[in-house]
């Protein structure tokens, strides 16, 4: 089910509900063809996480997600032993332990006999795989999304680097786990801090900006079938003008879609200053931003009779 060409990526992502630019499609195609991870950067809400989901749908693969945060460590990302279960089992099989050490002449002999049974407690049965191990162990290839990798610590980043370079993990008690299939890896970052050069070198990098006018209109038409052409044009023009204002949080694609839904619900046909002011809370998430839009309402309202 691999992508055959850049055009094939565009087609399959669109079928999965994601309209991509040619640049994004090229990067996705390269990642698929070379097995390298993609590092996606860009402002909030431009569809970084959505891209990974669409790739999973386009390739008909399961998506496994690891959300990063400060303090995330291997136990939470890779695997953990289930201590509670191990202890309970030890209790339950107490008598069995008596059988095992029955007839042991010395204490050290008894300990040796128990040591031989150790594998029973450090086995697949007692391991709790976390997202990274799940992605590596999966018999079918998956899409692995490592979200907001910039929030993780440098130590975790170094560990990730090792994992992404050979796709194998060594678990001391179980030996080395090698990936049966190389997962399609997408890392996202919001520039909370800079990622190390080593990680960047391993990845194919893309910065997703706010979409071009045409692309945004295509997205709205795809997600909200039946929306009037004139409304789409006016809406995209207005949103683009609002983005040009100096706002704390610029409206992104998801806000454009929410706004389109609201306008349809209100049966609006033309965007007027009044309509913008009534529905401002859908576009702006901060009071100061709403205030700024109010101040510039005349310059952002589409010209009357706009139809192209």
């Amino acid at each position, binding site marked *: 089910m691999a992508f055959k060409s850049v055009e094939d990526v565009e087609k399959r992502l669109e079928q999965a509900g994601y309209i991509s630019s*040619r640049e994004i499609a*090229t990067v996705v195609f390269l990642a698929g063809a070379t097995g390298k991870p993609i590092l996606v*950067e860009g*402002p909030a809400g431009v569809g970084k996480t959505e891209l990974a989901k669409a790739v999973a749908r386009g390739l008909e693969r399961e998506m496994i997600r690891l959300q990063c945060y400060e303090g995330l460590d291997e136990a939470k990302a890779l695997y953990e032993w289930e201590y509670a279960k191990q202890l309970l089992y030890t209790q339950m099989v107490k008598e069995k332990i008596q059988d095992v050490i029955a007839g042991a002449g010395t204490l050290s002999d008894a300990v040796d006999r128990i040591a031989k049974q150790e594998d029973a407690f450090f086995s697949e049965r007692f391991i709790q795989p976390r997202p990274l191990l799940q992605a590596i162990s999966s018999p079918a290839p998956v899409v692995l999304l490592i979200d907001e990798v910039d929030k993780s610590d440098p130590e975790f980043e170094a560990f990730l680097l090792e994992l992404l370079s050979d796709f194998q993990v060594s678990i001391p008690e179980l030996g080395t786990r090698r990936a049966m299939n190389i997962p399609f890896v997408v890392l996202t970052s919001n520039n909370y801090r*800079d990622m190390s050069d080593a990680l960047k*070198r391993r990845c*194919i*990098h893309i910065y997703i900006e706010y979409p071009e006018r045409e692309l945004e209109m295509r997205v709205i038409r795809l997600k909200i079938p039946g929306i009037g052409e004139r409304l789409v044009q006016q809406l995209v023009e207005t949103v683009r003008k609002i983005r040009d204002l100096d706002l704390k949080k610029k409206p992104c694609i998801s806000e454009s879609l929410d706004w389109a839904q609201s306008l349809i619900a209100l049966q609006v046909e033309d965007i007027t200053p009044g309509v913008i002011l009534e529905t401002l809370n859908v576009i702006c998430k901060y009071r100061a931003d709403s205030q700024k839009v109010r101040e510039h309402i005349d310059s952002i309202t589409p010209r009357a009779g706009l139809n192209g």
Partner: protein
Amino acid sequence: MVNLILKFVSSCRAADLRVSTAEVLDCLNQLELIDTIDEVQFRTVLRTNFVKSRRDQAKFDRLYHLFFHEMGKDSGLSEDDPFAGLIRDTMEILYQRANGDMLYRSLLDFLSGDPLAYLTALRHMRNMDHDAPQNVRFNLGPLAGRLEILMQINAVRAKVIQFLDDRYASTAGIERHNAVDFFNRHLDSAYSLLMHEPRPLYDDLQNIRSYEQHLKYLGERPFSALTQQEVEEVRDVVDRLVRKLKDIVSRRYAARSRGVLDIKKTLRKAMRYQGTPVELAFKKRPPRRGKIVTLCDVSSSVWSAARFMLNILYSLQECFTKVNSFIFVSGLAEVTDIFENHEINSAIEKVLHETDIEYYAPTDYGETFRHFKRDYLDILNKKTTLIIIGDARTNYFHPEDRILSEMREKSRRVIWLNPEPESEWNSGDSEMFAYKPYCHELRPCRNLNQLIEFVEELIL
């Protein structure tokens, strides 16, 4: 194709983009997978391999355009053009008459479609101030270098026109006109590379503005306008805030994700249930804490904000592994010890009276950064949050923004707090615009509300 890409890589490196050999190999392998006739695909492969941060993309785009458009397919020169021969003749003569001047020759190479030497000369000119002795406080080096290049561009332009006038005065006007046009376009391109260096993109910078109103009146008063009585009130508020934050932090660590199983405690608890481990005990993980390094401008307007900032940071010392503090005006002094060994208010008094700082000298950010780089750069690491409090007013001294870029590379985050209103950030001698691209976060810090909001975000 391989040679073309390698030439382009050399130009990228000459313009200070860091491209590794592994990335070049990746790029060449990936070009075989795509349709190189489709320019978007071709450019994407180059861009995704050669620039891996948003800040360098503007520089890359400029080089790409120069290399593949201005000097490539849009240069208007193809072998069967009637005036191609004329261009070749002109170049030949210019090379013959060239003296040993490297810069002049690099411009001739540029006109022949090889920008490498010229880009190297530009980089050398821009780095001149870094190679200069460290006591230079003005950026006269790069200015002089820029002037020299400018004069050479004009010299080449004059020679080309003169040669074409002498040699081809009698030939058909259109060919001569085309040739002049060709040279002019290329020299204009060299000029724009010299004068308009693409600034790093920083649209991923977190520029924090609006804020919740914590305190009505006192919280909105600019620090610089506080009366003595209000200063005392603000101190009380700060103390309350500090206590609140400490509580939150300790509560959060208590509920923080657990560490590994604590065998001893678990077995001890199991005694109650005849040895059955019903309750498990886990080791508490020590709180992860970061290092903070603060650089405070202590010229009067900024100091009024910086003192409260330091006050809060030192009251919250246990939330961080280490807090290192520096103050500066025209030089830099470390004040970490003073704050660690004295009660906060007397520490602030001591800082003002006992450190080796000339308070009445003009603020010099460039000198401060040079000094920091020379003596303290090694205290920055990937666990460090660097907080700079200052109005970025450099008194027209060299801003040394590139040293800030080096500091960013060594730190986890760079946060700039500016006590001036945002509308004044790019007026007069403020270099906020130059420093902006190298910060992760930029926020105003003029009053208590903004400061409270910042500290809460820093700690929580």
